[in-house]
């Protein structure tokens, strides 16, 4: 395939002007789909060469039928990380929105509030706060809600950096096909537990038990990720004020 498209050798692929940026993005966990234009075309045209190329780094260049590529490290040569618990929740909510026919009315554009609504509908407010703020002992409801919204916003930003979504103006989010990765365990006809075991075996996912119950504060991914932002905690002072008032 690649020979027909003009990439006779790996050298030709590497010499392509788009290759350095694409290579760096893939190594940092970026998912590349049709909307990435030149990158996607390069991956399609040079797929054979690049699969062999990344295999030498102990990685698999995965091409899903849904129309996106990503790099899956299986060895130790290229670092890998697990998504945070909050990112997994938000990613699944985004995937649900991607599947919802309502989102196609606006060409896959959703608002941040819709993501929060989806999470609240699936988990309930209390469970959502508990899942995203597991270490807070005493929570003022308003403060906790504000903190949850901030955490969800940060998570969306991280997922957008990985190519699962695209941030638009006015807190609009364009959903991208890579979100279907979050639905992989329930996609086939097999039982979810069975499908999950298979995905674990392929190195696509890691079970939370194996990570020692990762939360957004204890996840191995967080420790490994140099891109992980520190969430500002302006609300502590509110809590202090409350205590002082009490």
């Amino acid at each position, binding site marked *: 395939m690649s020979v027909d498209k003009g990439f006779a050798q790996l050298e030709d692929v590497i010499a392509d002007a788009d290759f350095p940026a694409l290579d760096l993005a893939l190594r940092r966990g970026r998912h590349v789909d049709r909307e990435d234009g030149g990158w996607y075309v390069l991956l399609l045209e040079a797929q054979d060469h690049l699969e062999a190329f990344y295999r030498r780094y102990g990685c698999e260049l995965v091409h899903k039928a849904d*129309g996106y590529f990503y790099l*899956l490290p299986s060895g130790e040569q290229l670092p890998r990380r697990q998504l945070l618990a909050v990112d997994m929740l938000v990613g699944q909510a985004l995937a*649900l929105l991607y599947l919802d026919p309502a989102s196609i009315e*606006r*060409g896959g554009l959703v608002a941040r509030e819709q993501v929060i609504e989806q999470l609240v509908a699936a*988990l309930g407010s209390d469970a959502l706060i508990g899942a995203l703020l597991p270490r807070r002992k005493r929570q003022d409801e308003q403060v906790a809600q504000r903190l949850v919204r901030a955490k969800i916003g940060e998570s969306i930003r991280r997922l957008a950096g990985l190519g699962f979504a695209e941030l638009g103006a006015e807190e609009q989010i364009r959903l991208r096909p890579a979100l279907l990765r979050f639905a992989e*365990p329930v996609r086939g006809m097999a039982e979810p537990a069975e499908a*999950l075991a298979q995905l674990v075996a392929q190195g696509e996912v890691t*079970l939370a038990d194996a990570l020692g119950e990762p939360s957004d504060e204890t996840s191995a991914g967080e420790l490994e990720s140099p*891109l992980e932002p520190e969430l500002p905690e302006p609300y502590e002072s509110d809590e202090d004020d409350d205590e002082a008032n009490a």
Partner: protein
Amino acid sequence: MSAQEQEFAQVLRAVAERRPSLALETLDLAFLIALRVRGHGAQLASFSEVQLVDVFEQVCALIEPAAEQRKKRATYALARLREQRLLVRVDGHGVVRSGEYALTRLASGIVDFYLDEDVLTRESLTLLSATLRSSLQQIVDAAQGCERGDDASWSERVKGPLQVTVAELIAGIERRQRGLDGRQEEFQLEIRRLLEASWFEAIERCQSLLEATGATLRELNEILLRDSSVLLALLHDIEELAANSGATEAEQAALQVVDQVDRIVAWGGSRQRAWSEYFQYVHRYLRDVVRLDPTRALTQRLREQLSGNGRRFSLTVAGAPPIRLLRVVQPLAERPPVSRPRAQREREPAPDRGIDPEAVLTARVRSALDDGAASLADVTDRVNAEVDEAERFAMAGRVAQTTARIARAHAERERPWVQAGGEIEIEDWRLERARSGDEPGSSGG
């Protein structure tokens, strides 16, 4: 503030000063629409009061069948619509007889929006474009016949048609473009409803809708691109003829129409791009989501997964850290230590020998006397010649005092008033040089 912003603020201020507002209920809107439909059906340009009340009662019977006192409500509705400038009295007879009323341009615009009659179609665009071309050709012919300096002809035969006929035709295209935009929004909603209602069975219908709309947009864009080049060429001819004849207003009118044509062409391009993105998104959705999940079980299973059913898991992604580029270290330049200046700040006082004005005056008086001045007026005149006009009066006194010290003065019993240079008059003395022993400092004065 730029000129454009100023103009913008001015327009807003002018609108705000008039305090416009609109408050229309469903019944009012239905009444306006009914008037428009009736008017078209019966070829009526205006309505009598009886006709208005009749139409209102019919609308009321349909929309609010339980409503009572319909005539009274009709009277209030008419007053309300007139206040909001949606209905206007056109007969001008005042209280002499019952009035004739017509819908205003504002009311027509509102009714058009709800009736949604004007949607750009292949037929309407082709027709409007052909009419536009023919109008512009006529204007080109007229412009060729206009003489240089004949402003009336340029205004009547070129500027007028450009600003009225051509601008109206283009506005017609733009109005229909907005209609098509609205239609597309409805169409996107329809696709969503089709999928929500029948999911897998809706695929064929959605695809045919997508393709039909895509084809319409493509066709419209092709017509716009093809015809716009002809229209722009004709407008360019008009602009050139006007510029060569110095008809500035006609040239400006042509340029405005060029802007309008550019805008409708840009609309075509932007809508086709937006549609292309939407088309691809929906196609991908139909292929990847609907076809692969005909029973729509995936959504349900994913919702259960998100709710916490089953084991929690985390996706694995590549996580190479970004390359660290160390910056070149620049050694800091050593700053000199802070110390007090050692130079002597206080300076020793030095004697300042300034000019002694009294010595200067004495020297001048003496010089005048040496030069042969024989009277006080003469001395004063000579000394004051070197002094500013404002100081001459005071100086005259000082000169008299100094002269008296240096020279010997002889005065008559009645001393004459004599001009002493400029506007000063003094009582004059005759003078005689004093002996050296009489000079200041040499005697007790």
